[in-house]
Protein backbone atom coordinates (compact mmCIF):
# COMPACT_ATOMS: atom_id res chain seq x y z
CA UNK A 1 0.00 0.00 0.00
CA UNK A 2 1.43 3.40 -1.00
CA UNK A 3 1.57 6.43 1.29
CA UNK A 4 -0.98 8.23 -0.95
CA UNK A 5 -3.37 5.31 -0.76
CA UNK A 6 -3.11 5.20 3.09
CA UNK A 7 -3.75 8.99 3.27
CA UNK A 8 -6.85 8.62 1.06
CA UNK A 9 -8.17 5.77 3.22
CA UNK A 10 -7.59 7.85 6.41
CA UNK A 11 -9.36 10.88 4.86
CA UNK A 12 -12.31 8.66 3.84
CA UNK A 13 -12.83 7.32 7.36
CA UNK A 14 -12.49 10.86 8.74
CA UNK A 15 -15.23 12.06 6.37
CA UNK A 16 -17.43 9.12 7.37
CA UNK A 17 -16.90 9.82 11.11
CA UNK A 18 -17.61 13.53 10.71
CA UNK A 19 -20.63 12.74 8.50
CA UNK A 20 -22.02 10.27 11.03
CA UNK A 21 -21.43 12.81 13.79
CA UNK A 22 -23.29 15.52 11.88
CA UNK A 23 -26.21 13.18 11.12
CA UNK A 24 -26.39 12.11 14.79
CA UNK A 25 -26.20 15.73 15.95
CA UNK A 26 -29.03 16.76 13.59
CA UNK A 27 -31.09 13.75 14.70
CA UNK A 28 -30.53 14.55 18.37
CA UNK A 29 -31.39 18.19 17.66
CA UNK A 30 -34.66 17.23 15.99
CA UNK A 31 -35.49 14.81 18.81
CA UNK A 32 -34.77 17.51 21.38
CA UNK A 33 -36.93 19.99 19.44
CA UNK A 34 -39.88 17.63 19.43
CA UNK A 35 -39.30 16.72 23.08
CA UNK A 36 -39.22 20.42 24.05
CA UNK A 37 -42.03 21.44 21.77
CA UNK A 38 -44.41 18.64 22.91
CA UNK A 39 -45.02 19.70 26.53
CA UNK A 40 -44.76 23.39 25.62
CA UNK A 41 -47.39 22.95 22.93
CA UNK A 42 -49.75 21.24 25.40
CA UNK A 43 -48.92 23.89 28.01
CA UNK A 44 -49.80 26.51 25.43
CA UNK A 45 -53.10 24.73 24.69
CA UNK A 46 -53.88 24.55 28.44
CA UNK A 47 -53.03 28.21 28.83
CA UNK A 48 -55.34 29.14 25.96
CA UNK A 49 -58.12 26.95 27.39
CA UNK A 50 -57.72 28.53 30.83
CA UNK A 51 -57.78 31.99 29.28
CA UNK A 52 -60.94 31.09 27.36
CA UNK A 53 -62.63 29.70 30.49
CA UNK A 54 -61.61 32.79 32.47
CA UNK A 55 -63.06 35.07 29.78
CA UNK A 56 -66.26 32.99 29.75
CA UNK A 57 -66.46 33.23 33.55
CA UNK A 58 -65.99 37.01 33.44
CA UNK A 59 -68.66 37.26 30.75
CA UNK A 60 -71.05 35.25 32.91
CA UNK A 61 -70.31 37.45 35.91
CA UNK A 62 -71.29 40.51 33.90
CA UNK A 63 -74.66 38.91 33.15
CA UNK A 64 -77.46 39.70 35.57
CA UNK A 65 -78.20 37.00 38.15
CA UNK A 66 -81.40 35.05 37.49
CA UNK A 67 -83.97 33.26 39.55
CA UNK A 68 -86.21 30.88 37.59
CA UNK A 69 -89.42 29.43 39.00
CA UNK A 70 -89.85 25.95 37.61
CA UNK A 71 -93.52 25.28 36.84
CA UNK A 72 -95.21 22.65 34.62
CA UNK A 73 -94.06 23.89 31.17
CA UNK A 74 -90.42 24.31 32.15
CA UNK A 75 -90.36 21.06 34.10
CA UNK A 76 -91.67 19.18 31.04
CA UNK A 77 -88.73 20.33 28.90
CA UNK A 78 -86.91 17.17 29.94
CA UNK A 79 -84.49 16.87 27.01
CA UNK A 80 -83.14 20.35 27.58
CA UNK A 81 -79.54 20.56 28.80
CA UNK A 82 -80.26 22.58 31.94
CA UNK A 83 -76.91 21.71 33.49
CA UNK A 84 -75.22 24.13 31.08
CA UNK A 85 -77.24 26.98 32.59
CA UNK A 86 -76.45 25.87 36.14
CA UNK A 87 -72.90 27.14 35.56
CA UNK A 88 -74.31 30.67 35.40
CA UNK A 89 -75.42 32.83 38.32
CA UNK A 90 -78.85 31.21 38.29
CA UNK A 91 -81.19 29.48 40.75
CA UNK A 92 -84.08 27.19 39.84
CA UNK A 93 -86.91 27.15 42.38
CA UNK A 94 -89.15 24.15 41.83
CA UNK A 95 -92.82 24.60 42.77
CA UNK A 96 -94.57 21.87 44.79
CA UNK A 97 -95.61 18.82 42.79
CA UNK A 98 -93.10 19.29 39.95
CA UNK A 99 -90.01 17.20 39.40
CA UNK A 100 -87.05 18.90 37.76
CA UNK A 101 -83.63 17.29 37.33
CA UNK A 102 -84.69 15.04 40.17
CA UNK A 103 -81.95 12.56 41.15
CA UNK A 104 -84.69 10.12 42.26
CA UNK A 105 -85.77 10.01 38.60
CA UNK A 106 -82.30 9.13 37.39
CA UNK A 107 -80.96 12.62 36.64
CA UNK A 108 -77.30 13.05 37.45
CA UNK A 109 -76.42 16.57 38.52
CA UNK A 110 -72.90 17.85 39.00
CA UNK A 111 -72.70 18.31 42.81
CA UNK A 112 -70.73 21.52 42.22
CA UNK A 113 -73.87 23.17 40.79
CA UNK A 114 -76.68 20.98 42.16
CA UNK A 115 -77.20 23.33 45.10
CA UNK A 116 -78.66 25.85 42.63
CA UNK A 117 -81.90 23.87 42.52
CA UNK A 118 -84.25 24.62 45.42
CA UNK A 119 -87.29 22.36 45.81
CA UNK A 120 -90.30 23.64 47.68
CA UNK A 121 -93.21 21.95 49.46
CA UNK A 122 -95.34 25.12 49.56
CA UNK A 123 -96.03 28.01 47.21
CA UNK A 124 -95.44 30.46 50.09
CA UNK A 125 -92.02 28.82 50.41
CA UNK A 126 -91.33 29.57 46.73
CA UNK A 127 -91.87 33.30 47.29
CA UNK A 128 -89.83 33.30 50.51
CA UNK A 129 -86.92 31.84 48.52
CA UNK A 130 -87.30 34.49 45.79
CA UNK A 131 -87.24 37.24 48.43
CA UNK A 132 -84.20 35.76 50.18
CA UNK A 133 -82.19 35.32 46.98
CA UNK A 134 -82.72 38.90 45.72
CA UNK A 135 -81.53 38.08 42.19
CA UNK A 136 -81.43 40.73 39.45
CA UNK A 137 -84.08 39.04 37.38
CA UNK A 138 -87.02 36.70 38.03
CA UNK A 139 -88.26 34.44 35.23
CA UNK A 140 -91.65 32.87 35.84
CA UNK A 141 -94.73 31.68 33.97
CA UNK A 142 -97.09 33.58 36.24
CA UNK A 143 -100.20 31.83 34.90
CA UNK A 144 -98.86 28.48 36.10
CA UNK A 145 -98.22 29.62 39.68
CA UNK A 146 -101.05 29.12 42.12
CA UNK A 147 -102.26 32.57 43.21
CA UNK A 148 -100.11 34.39 40.60
CA UNK A 149 -97.14 36.64 41.34
CA UNK A 150 -97.45 38.51 44.68
CA UNK A 151 -97.43 42.31 44.39
CA UNK A 152 -94.49 42.80 46.76
CA UNK A 153 -92.07 40.60 44.76
CA UNK A 154 -90.98 43.66 42.76
CA UNK A 155 -89.35 44.94 45.98
CA UNK A 156 -86.93 41.99 45.94
CA UNK A 157 -85.93 41.67 42.28
CA UNK A 158 -85.10 44.37 39.74
CA UNK A 159 -86.81 42.76 36.77
CA UNK A 160 -89.76 40.36 36.61
CA UNK A 161 -90.21 38.52 33.33
CA UNK A 162 -93.67 36.99 33.29
CA UNK A 163 -93.35 34.47 30.45
CA UNK A 164 -96.50 33.73 28.45
CA UNK A 165 -95.49 30.76 26.28
CA UNK A 166 -92.97 27.96 25.77
CA UNK A 167 -91.71 29.82 22.66
CA UNK A 168 -90.90 32.85 24.80
CA UNK A 169 -89.13 30.56 27.25
CA UNK A 170 -86.98 29.26 24.39
CA UNK A 171 -85.81 32.79 23.62
CA UNK A 172 -84.54 33.05 27.20
CA UNK A 173 -82.84 29.65 27.16
CA UNK A 174 -81.65 29.43 23.55
CA UNK A 175 -80.27 25.90 23.28
CA UNK A 176 -81.74 23.55 20.67
CA UNK A 177 -83.27 20.25 21.77
Amino acid at each position, binding site marked *: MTTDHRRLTRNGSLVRTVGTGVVLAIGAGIACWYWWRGPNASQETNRLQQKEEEEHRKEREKEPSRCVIVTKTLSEMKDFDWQKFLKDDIVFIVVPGETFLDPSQGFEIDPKVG*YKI*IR*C*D*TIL*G*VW*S*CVKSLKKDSLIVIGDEVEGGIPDDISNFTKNIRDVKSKEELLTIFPIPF
Partner: protein
Amino acid sequence: MESRILKEYKDSRSLQSQYILALDPISTDDLTHWECTIKGPLHSPFANHTFKLRIDIPQTYPLTTPICKFEPFAMPHPNVNFETGEICLDILDTNWSPVFNIQYIVEAIVWLLNEPNFKSPLNLDLANLLRFDDLKAYHDLISYHLNNSAK
Protein backbone atom coordinates in the same frame (compact mmCIF):
# COMPACT_ATOMS: atom_id res chain seq x y z
CA MET B 1 -63.14 41.26 84.93
CA GLU B 2 -59.48 40.48 84.18
CA SER B 3 -59.18 37.54 86.58
CA ARG B 4 -62.42 36.06 85.28
CA ILE B 5 -61.26 36.30 81.65
CA LEU B 6 -57.85 34.93 82.58
CA LYS B 7 -59.51 31.91 84.20
CA GLU B 8 -61.67 31.37 81.12
CA TYR B 9 -58.58 31.62 78.93
CA LYS B 10 -56.82 28.93 81.02
CA ASP B 11 -59.92 26.73 80.90
CA SER B 12 -60.15 27.15 77.13
CA ARG B 13 -56.66 25.59 76.75
CA SER B 14 -58.02 22.23 77.87
CA LEU B 15 -61.38 22.56 76.10
CA GLN B 16 -62.65 19.40 74.46
CA SER B 17 -65.84 19.69 72.49
CA GLN B 18 -67.44 17.89 69.57
CA TYR B 19 -68.45 21.12 67.87
CA ILE B 20 -66.05 23.79 69.15
CA LEU B 21 -62.94 23.37 67.02
CA ALA B 22 -61.09 26.42 68.33
CA LEU B 23 -61.73 29.06 70.98
CA ASP B 24 -58.91 31.54 71.39
CA PRO B 25 -58.24 35.20 72.04
CA ILE B 26 -57.19 36.93 68.83
CA SER B 27 -54.06 38.07 70.71
CA THR B 28 -52.84 36.85 74.10
CA ASP B 29 -51.93 40.50 74.86
CA ASP B 30 -55.62 41.42 74.85
CA LEU B 31 -58.11 38.88 76.17
CA THR B 32 -61.18 40.96 75.30
CA HIS B 33 -61.39 39.87 71.65
CA TRP B 34 -61.86 36.19 70.86
CA GLU B 35 -62.38 34.10 67.79
CA CYS B 36 -64.11 30.75 67.73
CA THR B 37 -64.46 28.11 65.02
CA ILE B 38 -67.46 25.86 65.29
CA LYS B 39 -68.59 22.85 63.32
CA GLY B 40 -72.14 22.65 62.01
CA PRO B 41 -74.12 20.13 64.09
CA LEU B 42 -74.84 16.73 62.62
CA HIS B 43 -78.37 16.27 61.23
CA SER B 44 -78.67 20.01 60.63
CA PRO B 45 -78.36 21.85 57.29
CA PHE B 46 -75.04 23.16 58.62
CA ALA B 47 -73.35 19.75 58.95
CA ASN B 48 -69.99 19.50 57.12
CA HIS B 49 -69.48 23.26 57.29
CA THR B 50 -67.40 25.30 59.73
CA PHE B 51 -68.18 28.81 60.89
CA LYS B 52 -66.23 31.58 62.58
CA LEU B 53 -67.60 33.52 65.52
CA ARG B 54 -66.23 36.81 66.78
CA ILE B 55 -66.65 37.42 70.51
CA ASP B 56 -65.97 40.84 72.03
CA ILE B 57 -65.87 41.07 75.84
CA PRO B 58 -67.01 44.39 77.31
CA GLN B 59 -65.23 45.99 80.28
CA THR B 60 -68.34 45.30 82.37
CA TYR B 61 -68.16 41.51 81.78
CA PRO B 62 -69.47 39.30 83.39
CA LEU B 63 -72.17 41.73 84.51
CA THR B 64 -73.03 42.41 80.88
CA THR B 65 -73.08 40.01 78.00
CA PRO B 66 -70.30 39.58 75.43
CA ILE B 67 -71.09 40.60 71.84
CA CYS B 68 -71.08 37.57 69.54
CA LYS B 69 -71.36 37.67 65.78
CA PHE B 70 -70.86 35.35 62.84
CA GLU B 71 -68.92 36.63 59.86
CA PRO B 72 -71.11 38.68 57.48
CA PHE B 73 -72.89 36.65 54.76
CA ALA B 74 -71.75 33.36 56.29
CA MET B 75 -74.65 32.11 58.43
CA PRO B 76 -78.07 31.65 56.80
CA HIS B 77 -80.19 30.95 59.88
CA PRO B 78 -83.60 32.27 61.01
CA ASN B 79 -82.07 33.82 64.15
CA VAL B 80 -78.99 35.33 62.51
CA ASN B 81 -78.86 38.51 60.45
CA PHE B 82 -77.26 37.23 57.23
CA GLU B 83 -75.74 40.61 56.27
CA THR B 84 -74.19 41.45 59.66
CA GLY B 85 -73.86 38.08 61.42
CA GLU B 86 -75.76 39.41 64.47
CA ILE B 87 -77.33 36.63 66.58
CA CYS B 88 -80.70 36.68 68.32
CA LEU B 89 -80.38 34.46 71.38
CA ASP B 90 -82.04 35.08 74.75
CA ILE B 91 -78.91 34.46 76.83
CA LEU B 92 -77.10 37.12 74.81
CA ASP B 93 -79.84 39.56 75.71
CA THR B 94 -82.40 39.63 78.52
CA ASN B 95 -81.63 36.18 79.91
CA TRP B 96 -77.93 36.81 80.44
CA SER B 97 -76.50 35.76 83.78
CA PRO B 98 -72.96 36.39 85.10
CA VAL B 99 -72.63 32.67 85.79
CA PHE B 100 -72.52 32.01 82.06
CA ASN B 101 -69.12 32.01 80.40
CA ILE B 102 -67.76 32.21 76.86
CA GLN B 103 -67.79 28.45 76.34
CA TYR B 104 -71.40 28.24 77.51
CA ILE B 105 -72.39 30.96 75.02
CA VAL B 106 -70.69 29.16 72.13
CA GLU B 107 -72.38 25.88 73.07
CA ALA B 108 -75.73 27.69 73.15
CA ILE B 109 -75.06 29.09 69.67
CA VAL B 110 -74.24 25.59 68.35
CA TRP B 111 -77.50 24.37 69.91
CA LEU B 112 -79.36 27.27 68.23
CA LEU B 113 -78.15 26.08 64.80
CA ASN B 114 -80.09 22.86 65.35
CA GLU B 115 -83.04 24.46 67.14
CA PRO B 116 -84.01 27.62 65.26
CA ASN B 117 -86.83 29.73 66.66
CA PHE B 118 -88.99 31.32 63.96
CA LYS B 119 -90.78 33.47 66.53
CA SER B 120 -87.80 35.82 66.98
CA PRO B 121 -86.32 36.05 63.49
CA LEU B 122 -83.44 38.09 62.16
CA ASN B 123 -83.77 36.37 58.78
CA LEU B 124 -87.45 36.65 57.97
CA ASP B 125 -87.44 34.54 54.80
CA LEU B 126 -85.82 31.52 56.45
CA ALA B 127 -88.07 31.92 59.49
CA ASN B 128 -91.11 31.98 57.20
CA LEU B 129 -90.04 28.70 55.59
CA LEU B 130 -90.12 27.14 59.07
CA ARG B 131 -93.42 28.84 59.84
CA PHE B 132 -94.91 27.38 56.62
CA ASP B 133 -93.39 24.00 57.55
CA ASP B 134 -91.57 23.95 54.19
CA LEU B 135 -88.55 21.99 55.41
CA LYS B 136 -87.42 21.00 51.91
CA ALA B 137 -87.10 24.64 50.86
CA TYR B 138 -85.57 25.52 54.26
CA HIS B 139 -82.74 23.00 53.81
CA ASP B 140 -82.21 23.78 50.11
CA LEU B 141 -82.12 27.57 50.64
CA ILE B 142 -79.59 27.22 53.47
CA SER B 143 -77.52 24.88 51.29
CA TYR B 144 -77.65 27.46 48.46
CA HIS B 145 -76.43 30.30 50.68
CA LEU B 146 -73.68 28.17 52.28
CA ASN B 147 -72.34 26.97 48.92
CA ASN B 148 -72.70 30.36 47.30
CA SER B 149 -70.90 32.22 50.08
CA ALA B 150 -68.12 29.60 50.08
CA LYS B 151 -67.21 30.49 46.48
